[in-house]
């Protein structure tokens, strides 16, 4: 177990020590391994993610209908909570709202753009929520990867205690942090942010054209076969390029690419299972953090044999 270097504890992207953090429902249930590893990795970098008090579900999917304002109320209420954090002094002049979940990120940011660009919509929603203070339209929704990029991948590299040497990982982006372009955090055709992060951790980032192909999203509820076929393409193309694992920041992509390997294997007996990490799990390993935050029990394909093979975790490491 290692401790945080003191010289890194004060630095964050803008010099503030605490950033309002929006977890979302999935990170509190089926993706606890994402949250635990990310919070631990952030702390190791001197970034304190402060959970927003009384946050509510983001709404899950951004409603594209013109006249469906009620489905944006949930997101806006979370922005008001960020304002309140400033009001109550939990944070100081901090309008950023950081998410880990790519779905929440997309929904929150899309709604925020609509509110910023449409005063009438905002006024209607403020009026409906008359018991809350008005949303002033100043919150900025950002993804954790953007915080890391602003901090600088060099600094992340400096924090690495156990480089992910010889670990070949294909970064997988999916849709929610890339599209539509005004919401995306990177080039929607050729994103590089996870590659840069993985390389700063000492891993070999494996490029695949399938890194931005949709995993099938919520089709997974209605038709597992659609998702199994998409997952098969995404996973086997990564394997053909030499990848030993994938990395993602989306719990839904993680579910479809990891847990659906059961269905993939049933349809394609030649398929070999491949671990799918949250990129923050790999950060926690590379930073040499306490294994408790890895949460591999929630991964479907157990990544521990691969990590043991690469001497990245102890032979007996259980969590």
């Amino acid at each position: 177990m290692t401790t945080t270097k003191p010289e890194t504890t004060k630095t964050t992207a803008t010099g503030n020590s605490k950033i309002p953090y929006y977890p979302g429902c999935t990170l509190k249930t089926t993706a606890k391994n994402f949250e635990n590893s990310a919070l631990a990795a952030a702390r190791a970098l001197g970034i304190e993610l402060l959970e927003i008090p009384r946050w509510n579900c983001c709404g899950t999917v951004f409603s594209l209908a013109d006249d469906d304002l009620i489905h944006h109320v949930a997101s806006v209420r979370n922005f008001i909570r960020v304002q309140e954090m400033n009001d109550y002094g939990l944070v100081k002049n901090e309008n950023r709202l950081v998410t880990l979940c790519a779905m929440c990120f997309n929904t929150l940011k899309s709604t925020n753009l609509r509110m910023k660009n449409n005063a009438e919509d905002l006024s209607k929603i403020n009026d409906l929520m008359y018991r809350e203070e008005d949303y002033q339209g100043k919150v900025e929704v950002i993804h954790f990867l953007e915080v890391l990029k602003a901090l600088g991948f060099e600094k992340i590299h400096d924090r690495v205690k156990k480089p992910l040497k010889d670990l070949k990982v294909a970064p997988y982006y999916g849709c929610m942090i890339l599209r539509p372009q005004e919401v995306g955090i990177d080039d929607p055709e050729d994103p590089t942010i996870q590659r840069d992060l993985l390389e700063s951790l000492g891993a070999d980032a494996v490029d695949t054209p399938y890194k931005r192909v949709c995993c099938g999203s919520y089709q997974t509820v209605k038709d597992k076969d659609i998702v199994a076929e998409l997952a098969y393409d995404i996973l086997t193309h990564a394997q053909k390029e030499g990848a030993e694992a994938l990395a993602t920041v989306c719990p839904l992509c993680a579910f479809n690419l990891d847990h659906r390997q059961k269905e993939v294997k049933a349809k394609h007996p030649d398929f070999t299972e491949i671990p799918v990490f949250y990129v923050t799990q790999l950060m926690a390993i590379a930073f040499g953090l306490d294994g408790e935050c890895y949460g591999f029990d929630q991964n479907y394909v157990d990544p521990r044999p691969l990590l043991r093979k690469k001497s990245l975790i102890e032979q007996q490491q259980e969590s």
Partner: protein
Amino acid sequence: MVDNKSPIMERIAEANKAATTGIDATDIKNWIEIYIMGKAYKVPADLTILTAMEYAGYKFVRGVGCRQGFCGACATVFRKKGDYKLQTGMACQTRAEDGMYLVQIPFTPAEKADYDITKEPYEASVFIKYYPEVTRCVSCNTCTKACPQDLEVMDYVQDAIRGDFNALADISFDCIQCGLCAMRCPAEIVQYHVAQLGRRMFGRYGQGVPDHLRKRVKEINEGKFNQEMARITTCAIDELRKIYTEREKEPE
């Protein structure tokens, strides 16, 4: 000692008299007009909605209970004169006002799931299994506005979705199961049943058994009270009376 002849006591006596049905209308000085299910009634001022309706001639067989604001049976929906807002409350706790439009909600139709908490995992999935509509919550907060107990109903629905049993149990502790949240919810969630499931799960799995209870159960199983029990279940009635009157009492 309060003087029964004091002016204040006379006024209270007079007010109470006015609240009793069957008295002479000339005894009542202040009157208001309310609209029960659209029909106008003149009733004495300063009554609760419940007693005002009884004065008007309604007799409640269902939809009334403790008359103290605890049982949650007398849910009421009303609009005040000149106010567009639809308001809710308990009829026994809400004062009738001049120009009020009102109606009683004798029962909230809601499906109550059948479950065995000993067979369910202590996870958010239990809510999705029995009340999947919780995920339809759009965070409009209408339930919170409807709650006569001023609970943060929406917040505990959100806690259910994310599996925070402890927060749910804390926030919903004072729920009186009146059902007004469910009647107002655009997502058709039955919040009060969801909360009850959550509190039951928290009670079984979240809180643990307190040490003093564990200790006492052990003592009982080991027969600490067997002799005493045998004595009081077999003794004569006079002796039992004596045991009862001379028993050790808890401090007041």
